[in-house]
């Protein structure tokens, strides 16, 4: 089965092509094309995953380009991480495909939406089975294109257009880092292959400074894609896209690509303490930074977006603390419960047609299915014991503690508190109390929207049990199997960490309960509307404004300058050339007088010219 893993990305590509060609004719039926083909991907992924449990890594490649002694290869590899990612991506993609059937119903560009979904899924699946950096980079960019198209799907909305552009440009900034890092690595190791790069790093063929440099450059790429500080601002704006897209791109796949890249190149990062520390610090800072913004946002999807940024920071923190397993584990669980939350949020939006949580409330009774599912997701992300988020978050905290960063550990703990708080603030505001605005025709979503949520809900509950301190760390042992560079499958941490994590998250929930349910604590106890702190948080620390003033202003100035050059210099040159050519053409057409004599004169003159040149430069004289 593993040798056929290359088929998995091709199904969505096929879906993309079919919908591109026949989408107009298929109309609503195009959903079935997308769903069926992603289902095929999912089935294959599951088969591959199960086969990978018992068999060693399968990898194949063939020469793609040969330049002198250089052989650029293309191929695919199914190692543990890749198999797991295949499963996660194809599963979420399949569920989102199914969900969209209901959510996007009635949209006139319905087939286009499914085509874009197919393209994106193809890129993402291709990304996670790439065996070398170059191929990864190609799919990496394709993922960017896919997300650009999907975020800008409502292109007639100014905000969506701007958000799509912003997402594309911000991730591009990171991509430049990735590209430079990739080329530097190639320069040093003469190969794009992961295995050969790791071998070279292992053998000490690359100097320590160079490893640190390349690692950080590649990490910049991951920062862009995974929405880490300081390139995080695109992710909340990207919520302008359709909600299923948010679930697909901003929960399970694209933003996870950065984490995946760091995980896939983990041996490289592990070789540099500085690089690891950078990742950990950025991760921890992003976690608490985004969480604090999430405390005050009023748009349901934006809260989730900042929570995503924060959770991705968690993963980065785990990877930076050498907690490979913890990072990947959290990546998996987060994919499930965050996708669930996004889909549930989509279901809520579908029902009440607003995204402002201040206008919701009391939806628990009306959305009999969405409510409990949203609660499950909220509990999972808050780290309540027994659900998946608890186990993975615990792993990360242990990794941070054991990695020797007590400060980062406490930052992560505070972020965990905030996460629990703002997630339950969201939950209480949306589902409990009285409706704060007029809501007509509030109804539960159709089946093809609820079923994916139910499946994700189940996974959000049970996914943690594959790697627990109590029932054995099956996932961790499997992930690092045969690869000592990745660290241990399970790190036994002090028991108080688990207790602390539980206490912190329960405290967050209790706080939120008091403030937003019982209202025994006034909402403005710490900082009310209009206070400085509140304003700063509401404006996301003014990061966007800061960029606007510095980077954007500078770029604009430069652009104006360049435009000036373009208009007066380049265009002048072009016009000059055009003028010359036009003049020549006019002269030429004037010569077409129709008079034989003129033709003869011209022909003879040219002949004489040739003869003279011939006589002067040699010819029969020599």
């Amino acid at each position, binding site marked *: 089965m593993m040798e056929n893993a290359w088929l998995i990305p091709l199904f969505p590509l096929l879906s993309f092509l079919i919908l591109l060609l026949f989408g107009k004719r298929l109309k609503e039926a195009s959903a079935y094309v997308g769903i069926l083909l992603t289902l095929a991907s999912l089935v294959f992924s599951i088969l591959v995953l199960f086969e990978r449990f018992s068999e060693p890594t399968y990898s194949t490649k063939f020469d793609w380009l040969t330049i002198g002694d250089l052989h650029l290869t293309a191929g695919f590899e199914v190692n543990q991480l890749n198999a797991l990612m295949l499963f996660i991506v194809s599963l979420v993609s399949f569920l989102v495909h199914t969900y969209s059937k209901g959510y996007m119903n009635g949209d006139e560009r319905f087939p286009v939406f499914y085509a874009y979904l197919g393209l994106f899924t193809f890129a993402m699946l291709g990304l996670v089975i790439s065996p070398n950096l170059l191929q990864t980079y190609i799919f990496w960019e394709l993922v960017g294109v896919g997300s650009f198209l999907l975020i800008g799907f409502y292109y007639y909305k100014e905000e969506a257009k701007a958000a799509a552009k912003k997402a594309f440009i911000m991730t591009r900034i990171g991509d430049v880092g990735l590209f430079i890092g990739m080329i530097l690595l190639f320069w040093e190791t003469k190969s794009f292959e992961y295995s050969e790069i790791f071998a070279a790093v292992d053998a000490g063929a690359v100097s320590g400074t160079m490893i640190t440099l390349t690692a950080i450059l590649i990490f910049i790429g991951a920062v862009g894609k995974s929405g880490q500080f300081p390139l995080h601002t695109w992710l909340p704006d990207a919520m302008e896209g359709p909600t299923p897209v948010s679930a697909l791109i901003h929960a399970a796949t694209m933003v996870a690509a950065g984490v995946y890249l760091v995980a896939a190149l983990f041996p490289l990062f592990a070789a540099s303490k500085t690089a690891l520390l950078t990742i950990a610090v950025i991760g921890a800072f992003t976690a608490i930074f985004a969480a604090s913004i999430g405390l005050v946002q009023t748009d349901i999807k934006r809260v989730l977006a900042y929570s995503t940024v924060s959770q991705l920071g968690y993963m980065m923190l785990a990877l930076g603390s050498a907690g490979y397993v913890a990072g990947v584990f959290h990546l998996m669980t987060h994919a499930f419960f965050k996708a669930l939350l996004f889909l549930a949020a989509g279901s809520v939006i579908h029902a009440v047609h607003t995204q402002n949580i201040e206008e919701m409330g009391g939806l628990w009774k009306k959305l009999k299915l969405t409510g409990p599912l949203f609660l499950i997701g909220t509990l999972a992300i808050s780290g309540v014991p027994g659900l998946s988020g608890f186990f993975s978050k615990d792993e990360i905290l242990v990794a941070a503690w054991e990695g020797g960063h007590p400060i980062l550990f406490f930052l992560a703990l505070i972020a965990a508190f905030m996460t629990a708080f703002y997630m339950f603030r969201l939950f209480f505001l949306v589902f409990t109390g009285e409706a704060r605005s007029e809501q007509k025709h509030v109804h539960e979503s159709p089946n093809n929207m609820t079923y994916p949520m139910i499946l994700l809900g189940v996974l959000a509950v049970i996914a943690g049990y594959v790697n627990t301190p109590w029932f054995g760390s099956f996932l961790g042992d499997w992930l690092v199997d045969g690869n000592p560079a990745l660290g241990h499958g399970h790190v036994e941490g002090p028991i108080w960490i688990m207790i602390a994590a539980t206490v912190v998250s329960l405290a967050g929930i209790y706080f939120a309960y008091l403030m937003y349910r019982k209202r025994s604590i006034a909402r403005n106890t710490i900082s009310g509307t209009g206070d400085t702190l509140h304003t700063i948080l509401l404006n996301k620390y003014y990061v966007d404004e800061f960029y606007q003033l510095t980077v954007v202003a500078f770029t604009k100035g430069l652009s104006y300058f360049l435009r000036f050059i373009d208009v007066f210099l380049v265009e002048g040159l072009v016009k000059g050339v055009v003028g010359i050519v036009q003049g020549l053409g006019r002269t030429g057409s004037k010569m077409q007088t129709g008079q034989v*004599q003129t033709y003869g*004169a011209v022909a003879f003159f040219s002949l004489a010219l040739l003869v003279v040149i011939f006589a002067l430069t040699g010819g029969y004289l020599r």
Partner: protein
Amino acid sequence: MSSVPASAFLALALILFCIGLYGALTKRNTVIVLISIELMLNAVNINLVTFSKYGIAPSITGQVFALFAISVAAAEAAVGLAILISLYRTRKTVNIDEMDTMKN
């Protein structure tokens, strides 16, 4: 042997050829253009006859060839004039720069 070198004949032929060419390319009257072409042909004939006597392998062939050229030139002159006359009937002009139907 001969006091006049071959190159003198060739130079004369060259000058006549150039005069003919200039006339053919600049004169407006079609008859003069035709006559100029005859002059060019004559220059060529001088060359032929010269080489028949002073060439690397002198033989009568050059003269025979000149005869052929003269007869073909005569035929050309006749046909050319015939064309000229029929053209004149339709266009009422013999000016070569007014014959520009090739343009359309």
